[in-house]
């Protein structure tokens, strides 16, 4: 299955009900207020959040004049364009700095899939012929180090570790240093999940980011926030606090193979300017894909690609 088909398959499930509803909505002869009401429900259920929903709807009203007239297709086309405009243009997530090693930090709240994402990143870089190592800096959660090691063995990637309960900054430092010493292209450091409202844990994370800079100049080169697509409006608070603490510059939207849409990512880009660059669509190592805003919105709205409704 081609990668995009895989995502589409995931997103197809996502929009089950959604796309159908839009279609019945459009073909059901609804118009005006009723049409807007249903569209509102669709946007809310995608977790865009009240502020963005209102913004999108008022933009839409301006564009199509209150929905009083204009065919369903016209309205859908307009929503599509508005949503795409609320997303960043795609960038190559695998770009690395000219001087190796690149040091990447993988951060986020508990249970979003950081460890799996770190492993998938290592796999993707390896597939591109890059050399890479993983750093097991989640020394808090029981057996997190083991989890990453299992991945390391599966992928044939070295995992830099210390014991459970070790200082995460020390592990991160070791990882960055090891990558430099071995002349690798990249070091990917998995950190412990932490709720963003726990100040001392955020301080710990700042220290990790500071310390890797001492091992490799300019590190961390990328700080990835791993965001679970099932997350609701709290995602915005997560992104804000993590960005303040460690300058997050890219989001990995995970678990998009479920039915959740992760629409809060739009709100995050809107308010913080941090773009989604990668999406997780499954449990296999290959299930990490560059984010394509066009297809993402199309799939959410029940359309397979520009110009053609499913």
């Amino acid at each position, binding site marked *: 299955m081609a990668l995009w088909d895989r995502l589409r398959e995931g997103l197809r499930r996502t929009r089950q009900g959604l796309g159908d509803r839009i279609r019945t909505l459009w073909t059901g002869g609804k118009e005006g207020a009723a049409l807007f009401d249903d569209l509102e429900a669709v946007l809310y259920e995608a977790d865009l959040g009240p502020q963005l929903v209102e913004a999108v709807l008022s933009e839409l009203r301006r564009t199509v004049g209150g929905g009083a007239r204009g065919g369903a297709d016209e309205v859908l086309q307009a929503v599509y364009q508005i949503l795409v405009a609320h997303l960043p243009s795609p960038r190559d997530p695998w770009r690395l700095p000219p001087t190796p090693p690149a040091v990447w930090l993988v951060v986020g*709240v508990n249970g979003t899939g950081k460890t799996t994402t770190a492993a998938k990143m290592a796999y993707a870089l390896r597939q591109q012929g890059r050399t890479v190592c993983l750093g097991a800096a989640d020394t808090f959660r029981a057996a997190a180090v083991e989890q990453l090691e299992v991945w390391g063995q599966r992928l044939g990637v070295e995992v830099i570790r210390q014991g459970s309960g070790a200082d995460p900054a020390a592990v991160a430092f070791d990882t960055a240093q090891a990558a430099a010493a071995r002349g690798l292209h990249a070091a990917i450091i998995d950190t412990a999940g932490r709720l963003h409202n726990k100040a001392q844990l955020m301080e710990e994370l700042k220290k990790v980011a500071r310390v890797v800079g001492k091992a490799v100049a300019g590190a961390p080169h990328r700080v990835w926030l791993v965001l679970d697509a099932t*997350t*609701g409006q709290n*995602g915005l608070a997560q992104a804000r606090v993590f960005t303040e603490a460690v300058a997050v510059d890219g989001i990995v939207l995970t678990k998009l193979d479920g039915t959740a849409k992760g629409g809060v990512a739009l709100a995050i880009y809107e308010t913080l300017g941090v773009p989604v660059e990668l999406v997780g669509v499954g449990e296999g190592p290959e299930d990490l894909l560059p984010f394509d805003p066009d297809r993402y919105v199309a799939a959410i709205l029940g359309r397979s690609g520009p110009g053609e409704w499913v």
Partner: protein
Amino acid sequence: MFEALTEKLQATFRRLRSRGRLTEADVREALRDVRMALLEADVNFKVVKDFLARVEARAVGQEVLASLTPEQEVIRAVRDELIALLGERPERLKLAATPPTVIYLVGLQGSGKTTTAAKVARWLVNQGHRPLLVAADVTRPAAVDQLQRLAQTIGVAVWSQPESPAVEVVRGAYQRSRQVAADVIVVDTAGRLHIDPALMEELRRMEAVLPAHERLLVVDAMTGQDAVRVAETFAQAVPLTGFVLTKLDGDARGGAALSIRAVTGLPVKFMATGEKLDALEVFQPDRLASRILGMGDVLSLIERAEAALDRQDSERLAQRLDAGDFTLEEFKALIAQVKRMGPLSKLVDLLPQMGPLQKVKGQIDDRSLVRVEAILNSMTRAELRRPDIINGSRRRRIALGSGTTVQEVNRLLRQYEEMRKLMRQWKGMKKRNAKAPRFPLPPFPNL
């Protein structure tokens, strides 16, 4: 956003509270803010709609609008409906008549099943049970290790079978529970997508071997609108008996709980409130209701105020303030009313967690109120009515009489003066604008 929202709701309620009479339009306006609050809290869109329809039916009734405190009735209607929806009282685990009781924990990946399994086991130990933890998550790398570690930490028996499918693990677990005389079996299962038929089938096969008494869906408090679909699909595949809300130590509002409850009718049984293994509590509907609305326990505060304040006194005071008479007598009456509500430091604790008043927490000295009262009690009636006659000599006498110092008397008079200015401003505002609040915020003296 969180803070802004809390403040907004408070402002709306304050605005409502300050109006003499509420119209239906006022109520609808406040409910629009409640709607935003619920949506921001990730309550499902449709659930919000139904919920507000019910609240509105109650809140625009003539009884409410005609009551002396309509705004409080509105708030109460919101809160009551919220609690009614969340479940009136905590629901306990149902234990089997003949042990062992079998509890399955199911849910999406990353919702916190493994940690919750250990927490439930720990909670059971505290309740005098002998649980056996079962590591049936054979999918996620090292999940078994994780549960073993956690079990060791809390000193609970754990069963695992390396390289075995989950069905075999639970088969072995039953025998093991006999050997270790466990009366509750807590099964940690693999995280699964609700739309994955193979894994849902595996759950059913596990149950064929080891039938459950409780099937708890573990739900992350940060979950968005999708919570409804997840819960519905899980409930269709396995007959759930309730759910556990995790990661409530974050700042998510946990509106997902409301959605799930509304859609499935299942009770929330536990809430996980921290990373430590004893951070699991029996679910308290009223606490989550306040959290979802971001209101702190403003409602208890209102209840307390209602209980303490003499309505007639308040009305009389309000009338005099309306008339622009704000002498030290009114000041004194206000302080007496505030005092009747209980220690200030406790009152402040009831305020919203993130509200603007949060800063003053821990800085309030209840004794200062006593001193203020002593000073006021040492004044003559003439002084209370005409504070401008209080000269240096009177100040010395008042200080002496109240056991305070002239500085403290001065400070109090300054505070009174500031408050009087505020009152006057507000009165001017009222003249220009009939909609201005009838009564300003409770003028807590700046102690």
